[in-house]
């Protein structure tokens, strides 16, 4: 029992410590920290419609975080969720635009599939490079983010550009109204249903398949699974594909849901938020659901702070940064470190036979 609770206690401790550190920073910067936290809580949960905003952000964060945690569990540090999210949005947008006159029952699944395929492809090439030539996926997936960001800007302002708009922002033509899964609120039953189904499927994958358990063994000791005869290349490619698919799906849902159109640089912090959620959740699917609500709340508050409460939105960045610093610190006593982290670093030094 205590072994199960321990990661939860540890994550909560990290977050609490981060908030304490932020309080000090706020105070030093001349803002009342109590007022700041109250405003954040209002923006996240208490104000009218705050909870809708929170859920709107929690859903794509959760789906993307699931992808990140699958890769991390298998020991692959795919930090390209943002790029894979954009890649999925682009392919989904192209399909939605090409089939804009089609029946929604057919087109919506096709658009979602296109998003999954786009995200998967954008994770596949770093995966192949990693398996075939040992190229560090941290570098390749990070670079992939920039390429995908520029590709999105190109598609939104080029082939799919909305001719009727003012032209100030690179924005694509809106998708057909019939394809939308939600209004711009980003919350609907269909979106929620998809998120819940995906969450359950990923729990099955991680906890109840040979891939999930073998992958987590490989993530902690890749040499040992090779000595057991595991086809570690397949595990790696699987990890990258699942990871990219989920980010790509989130991209497609963003397109058909709240956004309604491809927009250059939309949801720019989603990928890194997802990485943070995966780490805070200790790479557990159920904990990621809870953490997504928390970080979804912070995202909602970052709009609320400057507009309603008159505080700088940078407060949210500071909180995110503080949590990132603490959760990734390696100098903690052995019992407190995120379990996956040391193994990931060890993998880089271990000699693969």
């Amino acid at each position, binding site marked *: 029992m205590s072994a199960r609770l321990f990661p939860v206690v540890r994550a909560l401790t990290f977050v609490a410590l981060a908030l304490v550190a932020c309080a000090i920073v706020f105070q030093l910067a001349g803002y009342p920290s109590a007022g700041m936290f109250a405003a954040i809580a209002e923006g996240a949960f208490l104000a009218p419609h705050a909870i809708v905003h929170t859920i709107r952000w929690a859903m794509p964060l959760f789906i993307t975080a699931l992808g990140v945690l699958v890769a991390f569990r298998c020991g692959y540090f795919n930090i390209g969720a943002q790029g894979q999210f954009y890649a999925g949005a682009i392919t989904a947008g192209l399909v939605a635009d090409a089939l804009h006159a089609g029946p929604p029952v057919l087109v919506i699944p096709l658009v979602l599939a296109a998003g999954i395929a786009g995200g998967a492809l954008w994770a596949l090439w770093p995966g192949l490079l990693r398996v075939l030539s040992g190229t560090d996926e941290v570098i390749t997936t990070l670079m992939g983010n920039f390429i995908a960001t520029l590709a999105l800007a190109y598609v939104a302002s080029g082939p799919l550009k909305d001719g009727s708009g003012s032209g100030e922002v690179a924005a694509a033509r809106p998708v057909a109204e019939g394809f939308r899964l939600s209004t711009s609120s980003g919350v609907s039953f269909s979106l929620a249903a998809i998120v819940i189904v995906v969450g359950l499927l990923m729990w099955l994958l991680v906890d109840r398949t040979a891939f999930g358990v073998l992958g987590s*063994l490989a993530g902690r000791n890749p040499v040992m699974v090779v*000595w057991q005869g*595991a086809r570690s290349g397949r*595990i790696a490619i699987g990890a990258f594909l699942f990871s990219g698919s989920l980010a790509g799906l989130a991209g497609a849902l963003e397109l058909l849901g709240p956004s309604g159109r491809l927009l250059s640089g939309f949801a720019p912090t989603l990928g890194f938020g997802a990485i943070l959620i995966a780490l805070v959740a200790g790479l557990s699917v159920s904990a990621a659901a809870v953490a997504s609500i928390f970080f979804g709340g912070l995202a909602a508050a970052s709009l609320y702070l400057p507009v309603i409460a008159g505080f700088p939105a940078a407060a949210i960045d500071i909180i995110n940064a503080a949590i990132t610093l603490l959760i990734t610190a390696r100098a903690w006593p052995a019992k407190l470190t995120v379990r996956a982290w040391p193994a990931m670093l060890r993998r880089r030094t271990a000699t693969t036979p």
Partner: protein
Amino acid sequence: MSALACDDVTVTYGETVALSGVSVAFDAGRIHAVVGQNGAGKTTFARVCAGIVRPSSGALTIGDEPVPVGNVRASRACGVELVHQSFALPPSFTVAEALEFGSTRPGGLVFSRRALEARWRAHLENLDVPARLSDRIRDLPVETQQGVEIARALVSDAKLLILDEPTAVLAPLAIDRLFARLRRLNASGVTVLLILHKIREVLAIAETVSVLRAGRLVEALLPREGMSPASLARAIVGSSDVDLAAPIALEALAAESERVAAVHLSGVSTRAVLGGPALDDVSLTVGCGEIVGIAGVEGNGQRTLVDALAALAPITSGTLRLAGHDVTSAPLLERRGHGLRIIPFERNIEGLSLASALWQNWSARLLVVGRLLRLIDPPRLRATSRTVLERWGVRFGSVDQNAGTLSGGNAQKVVLAREIDDDATLIVAAQPTRGLDIAAMAFVWRALSEARDRGCGVIVISSDLDELFDISDRVVVFVSGRIAGEFRPPYDVRTVGEAMTAAHA
């Protein structure tokens, strides 16, 4: 009155003649043994008798009644039952289910678990098998599994019980218990036909001995009285092999005896690996039931040998056969499928994932087999691994605790529990006692000896010559990736030591 008579039985597999003109009549009510070397046709003979193999020609009779050949149902209906060499009970069944499975006892198609157990309780108790009817077969020790097999065979009023190499899987004490059980059965009227290959065992139990050599019955129903180990050995091997060299089978025989070698390296060369020289034209055969020790100054090819066996160092020339299968270029997973098990050099890196739960460490060997996306049952894997680890005497609290929390000796027991199983044909133990205390060392040596006694081939690599001399049936010395000498007991530390260092000069 004969329990079973064979009349001019011949079995051919393609070009190979497995049995040639065998005629023999086993008297009812006695304990008979059929012996012979590996590949002499013993198992084929047992299978013909049980109706599993259909002979190319010849007939079977019981009493005066002819029995249809190659028909298991007919043979079982006549009271002939076979206990296989490698057990054939489904491992996931409970004992009660296993007894019901394939039983010919009349009555009922649908049972509750309780009714099924009630149905078989008396049968199991009569036979004194130390298992509960609700136990799963896979959770039982090998000896008890065999007891259940015998109980299964006796379900339907068997008159002739055939056991194919029943001692191969048993420890010496368990063999005595098996023989006692067989004598009790015999006293109650069951004729027993044993396929054996160890002379000591034959002399301990058989009333008559028949000898197969290269598919021919060269001695039929010799009485046990007046037989000496030497005379029996002569009968098995043949006074002169040349006169038997009927065109059949010498080649087929050679192929077959090679098949029973646990591993056969022939002229194997590799590239160099990290921390070791390349293997250079290494030829080494390890038989089933043999421990071969690899001696050598560290860094003389021991690691390369293990890597080559594990398919982690590619073989550039030569061939590698595992239990008769050519696996020269097969990946490790396929080799494991043929029974290769490895206790690697680096327990904490290659053997275990210290930051993973015990049950995951133990289950890894099962998880690597089959499709990656198949569903698994973690609660059951936890339960099974708990049972197995307890049986191996691992001291642990919960199977969810990390392997890194165990002491070195306990951690090594986890590796043993995973790598030494009933399907193992070759166990490669690389420095298996490094860093262990005396009690844990003794445990490891005992486990390897028991595996050998069950018929596994074992390769042990150790830098401690005393240890190697204690356990090995044969010691091979490696120098610079070559075999520099081979020694048999009694070992002389000085000559072995000279071989280890001489080639440097």
